[in-house]
């Protein structure tokens, strides 16, 4: 990537997103003209998408001949945390919210360099339990418990 084009990457990503979503708007159902009353359902999304495309081009143009500014580093810790959060998405359904948050509460501190493992273990059990008690028993809000549902009501 030429470093003299600032904001080239986000600009291109935005343009790609606009292209994909614009194609999606062409698939929207149309309603009989009698109900559309001047505006079809795709009109506003298409207008917004074209606006984003135009603004993205302006942004790319403005970034011309400017160096990319210094960005904070992204170490393996960031990627590992991201991967952890993404895998949590798939675990919520199966393991339930309480068990999955116990896992994230255990893994994130270790990942971030916490070395007092007993402390982390106690913490990772206490936090989800407190949340569970607060939400399910005080606020009467049932959380999906996945595999634990026979035991946690």
């Amino acid at each position, binding site marked *: 990537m030429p470093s003299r084009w600032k*904001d080239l990457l*986000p600009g291109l990503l*935005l343009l790609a997103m606009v292209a994909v*979503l614009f194609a999606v708007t062409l698939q*929207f*159902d*149309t*309603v009989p003209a009698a*109900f*559309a*009353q*001047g*505006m*079809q*359902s*795709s009109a*506003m*999304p298409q207008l*917004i998408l074209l*606006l*984003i495309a135009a*603004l*993205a081009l*302006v*942004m790319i143009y*403005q970034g011309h001949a400017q160096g990319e500014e210094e*960005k*904070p*580093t*992204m170490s393996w*810790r*960031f990627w*590992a*945390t*991201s991967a952890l*959060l*993404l895998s*949590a*998405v798939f675990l*919520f*359904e199966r393991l339930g*919210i309480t068990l999955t*948050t116990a896992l*994230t*509460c255990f893994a*994130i*501190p270790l*990942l*971030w360099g*916490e070395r007092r493992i007993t402390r982390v273990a106690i*913490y*990772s059990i206490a*936090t989800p339990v407190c*949340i569970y008690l607060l*939400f399910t028993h005080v*606020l009467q*809000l*049932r*959380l*999906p418990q996945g595999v634990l549902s026979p035991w946690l009501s």
Partner: protein
Amino acid sequence: MEPILTGLSILADPIAIAVILLGTIIGVLVGALPGLSSSMAVALLLPFTIYLEPIPAISMLAALYCAGTFGGSITAILINAPGAPPAAATAFDGYPMAQNGEAGRALGMAAVSSVIGGILSLIVMVLAAPALARIAHSFGPPEYFALAIFGLSMLASISGKSPVKNLIGGALGLLIATVGVDLTTGVERFTFGIPQLYEGISFIPILIGLFAVAELLSQADVVDRAMDRITLKAIKLPSRDDFKKVWKTILRSSGIGTFIGILPAEGSTMASMIGYNEARRWSRNGDKFGTGEIEGIAGPEAANNAATGGSMVPTLALGIPGSATAAVILGGLQIHGIRPGSYLFENQPELLYSIFAAMLVANLVFLVFGLVGARLFSRISLIPRTFLWPTVFALCVVGAYGVNQSLVDVTIMLIAGFIGFWLKRYGFGAAPIIMGVVLGSLVENSLAQSLIIFDQDASRFLERPIALGFFLLAFLSIFAKPLSNGLKGLKRRRAVNGGHS
């Protein structure tokens, strides 16, 4: 005067005072948990209020609502996780302040400006509620469209970042708001066959994702700060000089909040955004906003609490809720056999004044709570981040799930978090996105409604004086600065020419 006194007499009823206090405390606590919004708390408490008399019951919910709006700012400041949508604008400068070790100063300012905003608006309500109800009633689709355009006119300047990026962020927000079934055609848009997207994307998961989850991802790479250095400073409250600096901002935002709040839309969120933007526009340190400027807390906080009182007006007088929480309170009225509508003011004016009295008490209680608590809560910013952020994440998951009790919302929250992180990295702020989401459906629906009402003749917007006024404000908001710069330039040139002659 008599109904006002009858209404205020609620303050002599020990049971009523007790439930109002209870409502206030629950409100602050619930508002302070990320994602657990006051609307959810009111909804969950609703069935229990049935055991109370109608007036104490509604007063309790109103107090909870007021306190919840304030409580939302606590987490916004401490962990960049607005507990409620109206607190989003507070996070812009509040969280940077907490990171600079000034959590106590930020929390104290939030408490004081909230209370001043809240009380000023309540005074206006008590004096002029029926007149304000008439104003709210006169707002039809064309007026809303003009108001939304005014809101959008602030997008370019809402954060100190590049105007183009702000506009892109705003447009992305508008795009998010188009997801779901279109009101005017009944057609599904961008739902990708997921039934949970049919009613649109909820605001709360987006909010939590953009703020809290994005911050969690940034925190993954932060090196631990030296804790001892900021410990003492963190619990310090705002000084007298701070208040000297912000009193104008507080007054201005209270006015904005009171007015925007009576309009039956997502009033408090819009009010706090406008309050923030105006604070920035009028401040001498405008370009430092977003880095921890104390006026950036006073602006939105005074506005959103002023709007909270205001939003009860359309809720009671028109049956059109001023916010998500007000919508639930509307349900509460009906449980107790009270029909909202313009005749409520004539038939049961004392109810209205009792609600205002309850909100007044709530404001005074959370002033104490807020100032005493500020020292306590500010210590949260001292918890090691290795333990703080996993806890925030766990609360966010439950908060996102709770709104609609749907795991799809949890996924939306995480996606919003990743997108928010990347956008922040490339210099896009969260403020315009939030503004776009708030205004999105308002813009589209009010335009479509207006055009049908006007027989597709857009020039008939000019027949509506209020709409015209907002269009003018929007025009000024965009062009005032270039124009005044141009005028100054002209004057200078004239002065130079004058000197020659």
